């Protein structure tokens, strides 16, 4: 499929930012498309991994931050594993997610950044994750109250999900790491 670059502000420094964050140089990409052909979500997305790399190579502007693949990539790393040039596509996708949150790119279905924030908040609070707390906060944030409500009674009865958070973690390192990050 041809890659069409619309009239937009190019050379926004995105390529450089991706390189700085991920440490990955995408210059060696041959467009063999093994990443796209192996990607489990290729059939579900409009923009494929190989197109992301090509647009980066061309420094073709910030519009790729709004690509559906950015928040539909499952980080399965098949792309990296099969790349004949050993380009760490998975880390490139991480960098694009980090930049898209920073630049406030368009929110996408599922609001994964909201989930990520609550995940990290619960480990800051308890040192470990707390599923029920995280799920409740995410549901409030996305108004998805009724999704999976049929499953919780069964999961609680089977003790397949913990009712209370764990208080056994020593938060010394976690607090320090998360504080440093800010």
């Amino acid at each position, binding site marked *: 499929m041809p890659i069409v670059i619309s009239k937009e502000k190019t050379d926004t420094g995105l390529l450089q930012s991706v390189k700085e964050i991920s440490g990955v140089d995408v210059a060696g990409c041959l467009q063999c498309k093994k990443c796209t052909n192996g990607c489990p979500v290729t059939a579900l997305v409009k923009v494929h991994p190989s197109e992301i790399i090509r647009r980066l190579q061309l420094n073709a502007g910030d519009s790729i931050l709004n690509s559906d693949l950015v928040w539909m990539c499952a980080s399965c790393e098949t792309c990296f594993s099969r790349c004949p040039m050993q380009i760490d596509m998975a880390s490139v996708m991480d960098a694009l997610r980090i930049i898209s949150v920073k630049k406030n790119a368009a929110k996408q279905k599922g609001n994964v950044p909201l989930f990520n924030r609550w995940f990290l908040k619960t480990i800051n609070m308890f040192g470990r994750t707390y599923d029920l707390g995280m799920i409740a906060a995410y549901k409030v944030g996305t108004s998805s109250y009724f999704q999976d409500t049929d499953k919780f009674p069964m999961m609680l009865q089977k003790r397949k999900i913990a009712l209370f958070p764990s208080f056994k973690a020593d938060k010394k*390192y976690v607090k320090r790491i998360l504080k440093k990050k800010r």
Partner: protein
Amino acid sequence: MKYAYYPGCSAESTARDQYMSIREVSKALDIELIEPKGWTCCGSTPAHHTDRILSIALPAANLLLAKKMGLDMVVFCAACYNRMKVTNYEIQTNPKIRKEISDSLGEDYDGSVNVHHFVEVLIKDIGIKKLQEAFTHSLDGLKVVNYYGCLLVRPHQATNFDDPENPMIMDSLITIMGGESIDWPHKVECCGGGFALTRTDIVIELSNSILGMAKAAGAQCMAVACPMCQINLDLRQSDINKTKNTNYDIPIVYITQLVGLCLGISPEKLGMDKCVVSPKPIIDAVISN
């Protein structure tokens, strides 16, 4: 045999069954597993989505605890395993990262703690002979597909677990237990992993393809080695049947639960009552063997 054992957060919640089976199996095989006191979350996917240093510092904090105990680290959760292996790899190969991590932790970590998956401990450290001697039951007549998922085998430079496209370590464990491990093409496909809550539509698509292939291969059950894979394939099976008009009824069990059954441990002690798709036919078959 003595190891530091990192259960991972899911062991206290959605994967208590995995935790129970590892505890029982290691007790039966004289493997001493000591949890580093006060272990914390590895950061999983949200950490590497957010910040590279964060995603390496969080596992490094736990590896530092194991280093102070002077022990190798044993992990079962594929996500924790992957993050710890990547952490060691990054710290060993990138001096700048090592410096940044020691700034973040306030202590230097050199990336030297060996990290093993529990299945690796069974095959490589306990060994086939000792396992065969310990088994009182067998998986004779049982067709099993082994599902490795993504994070054990990838990125292979860092995890170095097995062949990244066609791993065999779980298959050999099933064979030792007397089961028929089926060769199938979806061993290392992705189940949707971290999208369990945020994008269940993606989980349904990807898990449907895995379950479909398992069914076509004639599997009576699927053995897994990752808590995320287990919950996606087990808990979502009814949703998949509804949305995709399928009729899957494939028990998704931890490979350690099968090992436990072969060691003569009761299914309750292995947490097998927590499976959503009932593993009763599997349990009955093994107990009568």
